[in-house]
């Protein structure tokens, strides 16, 4: 029994925070109200001034298992999630072996069951071993609960293959998530083509490499009657392309944006700092501004981090050799608060809607709220405290993030899932 007193309660439906006490009994929210009586044996937490909200759900993470456990494991990844206030994730299938068959899905999910304190879901590949040639074993994966198919990390290059996969899998109620990039245009370097790529002397990847595939894949989905989810959009025109297709209303499109694409630009790369190397690459301030607009307008249904751990050794290479990606699970909620909620750019309702509710809806999961009768799945967040992202603070195996050793306002104080307190600071 847990009684949180005087919390400020956030929900996706209201920009204002409701103040009150929340009583959790046997993993369920038993009562919400003012001055609730303290039941016998209840643990009382003074939550005055702190935000209580549904826990986050990240629909785009790389836990690197199987095959790259030196970067992350399901254990460390899910602990990193908890550390950031996240109680559910969807893994990407670019592992070794790739998650492209019922057998691999079964192994991964079994291992997740044992090794994670939060639900870990997985997506499956569109094509065998992400090669873009033969369809993966789609129905077998569906039977084990996979709903989302993606060759993330790469675009499914051949549109005919993707179209067939869509025609086939849509019949099973599955949907497609697209990493959008024409490889011939993008090259391997993951730096926006622009002033910065010129200055650093590295071949840039133009935004059109992404925009072409966003448009292509939505058209393919429309032709197949499929649901397409566009992953980690980085460019203004990409956002506008999605907005235009959504406004037509004749194809089911959802889309996600990552915190780093809202926050950083190619200028931050400055001195070849590989903690800013990711794919799609960081673009310009104009793109950041447009993405923020897109998020506020609802062009982006959800925020997802694309949590992509790499070892210090790999990231210590030169910019071209270093792998793409930064970690995000542990920094997302605090950075969203620090850079957007605190300065008043958007409210907690948007955070809850886009980073907690919508990702679960996308995956067909129940959406937790702080209401009587709901299962407890929530985060207590202190807006006055700070978080310093030291190596010791991080639970992820890897610390490849621009936030390393930086201090931001806000702190995840408690993560409650069912009868368990997963985190308490």
């Amino acid at each position, binding site marked *: 029994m847990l009684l949180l007193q005087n919390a400020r309660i956030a929900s996706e439906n209201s920009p204002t925070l409701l103040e009150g006490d929340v009583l959790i009994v046997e993993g369920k929210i038993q009562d919400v109200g003012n001055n609730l009586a303290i039941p016998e044996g209840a643990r009382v937490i003074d939550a005055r001034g702190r935000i209580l909200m549904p826990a986050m759900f990240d629909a785009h993470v790389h836990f690197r298992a199987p095959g790259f456990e030196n970067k992350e494991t399901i254990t460390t990844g899910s602990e990193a999630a908890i550390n950031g206030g996240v109680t559910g994730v969807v893994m990407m299938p670019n592992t070794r072996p790739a998650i492209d068959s019922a057998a691999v899905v079964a192994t991964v999910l079994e291992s997740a069951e044992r090794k994670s304190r939060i639900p870990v879901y997985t997506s499956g590949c569109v094509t065998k071993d992400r090669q873009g040639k033969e369809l993966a074993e789609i129905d077998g994966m569906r039977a084990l609960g996979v709903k989302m198919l993606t060759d993330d990390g790469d675009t499914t290059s051949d549109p005919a293959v993707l179209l067939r996969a869509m025609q086939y899998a849509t019949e099973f109620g599955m949907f497609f998530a697209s990493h959008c990039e024409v490889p011939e245009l993008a090259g391997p370097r993951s730096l926006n*083509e*622009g*002033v910065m*790529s*010129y*200055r*650093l*002397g*590295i*071949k840039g990847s133009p935004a059109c490499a992404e925009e072409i595939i966003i448009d292509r894949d939505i058209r393919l989905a429309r032709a197949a009657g499929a649901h397409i989810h566009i992953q980690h959009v980085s460019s203004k025109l990409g956002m506008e392309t999605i907005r235009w297709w959504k406004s037509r209303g004749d194809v089911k499109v959802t889309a996600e944006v990552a915190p780093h694409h809202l*926050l*950083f*630009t190619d*200028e*931050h790369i*400055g*001195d*070849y*700092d590989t903690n800013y190397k990711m794919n799609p690459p960081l673009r310009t*301030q104009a793109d950041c*501004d447009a993405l923020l607009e897109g998020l506020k307008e609802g062009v982006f249904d959800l925020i997802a981090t694309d949590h992509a751990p790499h070892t210090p*050794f790999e990231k*210590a*290479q*030169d*910019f*071209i*050799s*270093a792998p793409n990606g930064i970690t995000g699970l542990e920094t997302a909620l605090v950075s969203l608060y*620090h*850079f957007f909620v605190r300065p008043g750019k958007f409210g907690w309702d948007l955070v809850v809607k886009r980073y907690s509710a919508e990702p679960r809806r996308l995956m067909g999961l129940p959406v937790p709220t702080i209401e009587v009768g709901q299962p407890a799945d929530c985060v207590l967040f202190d807006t006055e405290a*700070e978080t*310093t992202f030291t190596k010791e603070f991080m639970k992820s195996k890897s610390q490849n993030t*621009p936030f390393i050793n*930086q*201090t*931001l*306002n806000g702190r995840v104080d408690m993560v409650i899932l069912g009868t368990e307190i997963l985190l308490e600071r």
Partner: protein
Amino acid sequence: MARKDLLDIASLHREEIEFLLDQSTSFKQVFTCSVKKVPALEGKSVLMLFYEPSTRTHTSFEVAAKRLSAEVTNFNVAHSSVTKGESIRETVETLQAMRTDYIVVRHSRSGLPGMIARQTKASVINAGDGAHAHPTQALLDAFTIKEKFPDPRGKKVLIIGDILHSRVARSTSNLLQKLGVEVAYLGPGSLVPKYGPETIRRFTDYDAAMAWAPDVVYLLRVQMERQDVQFFPSLREYHRLYGITTERLEEIRQRGLYIMHPGPVNRGVELCDAVMDYERSLINNQVENGIAVRMAVLDWLTPGGESPRSEPTFGRSAAPLPHFTA
């Protein structure tokens, strides 16, 4: 302020550039009046770390170091195919053990000399990294131009060729602009990036560029090995459109323009044979001046310090960028 490394032109202040160019003049005088050696770097060691072959730059640095009485060691990596960060770090550790004072690095990866500089106390000189920077080339180019135009402000330099892949274009244009020289680029649309600095005019038509009335025409070497990706249809077409043909040389001669080229020249591509005998070709002056400039750089740098990473550029852009509280 003492500098440990020379990694690019962008981070050099105008005063530092002026100083280096003045010093180069002195060093050039030293070895033109028969003294072949000065003891400036006596007892110091210079290590040549060339991951990309370059006889010209390599020799130039080696001669410069020897004229300063330094000991020169060649770390033979030119044929090594292992160029990943992993092996670089091992190499740097080895170098640390060797207690070298200066490391001259050439590598095909942009930014790699900076990475090495941060890992060693030795002074690192970037002798060309990818398409990023080639600061001593820029200094020798500026020096050569200043010999002809002691006050180069307002002079115009037209850089012709593959700008996209050229560290020479980046560094030399950057330096010349710092000295008040106007710079324009000319080349195929596929090789003159649209997003280069706004202060540099961009031409894709030879006649239009000539109408801009340059004082110096700087030809870049066409990277033949890059011809697996087509940036232009053929070398013949390149020569016709952007090269100094026999007819164009006549016009250049009449106008009295200087011609420069970082070498080695592809004859019949960037320029016709006759250019080599053109009295205002500065190509040999560039080679000669390279030694003096590199002596000045070696003499100027101070080994032993830390190489700071540039600050993250939070807040540099006009729009308020995220900034950290601590």
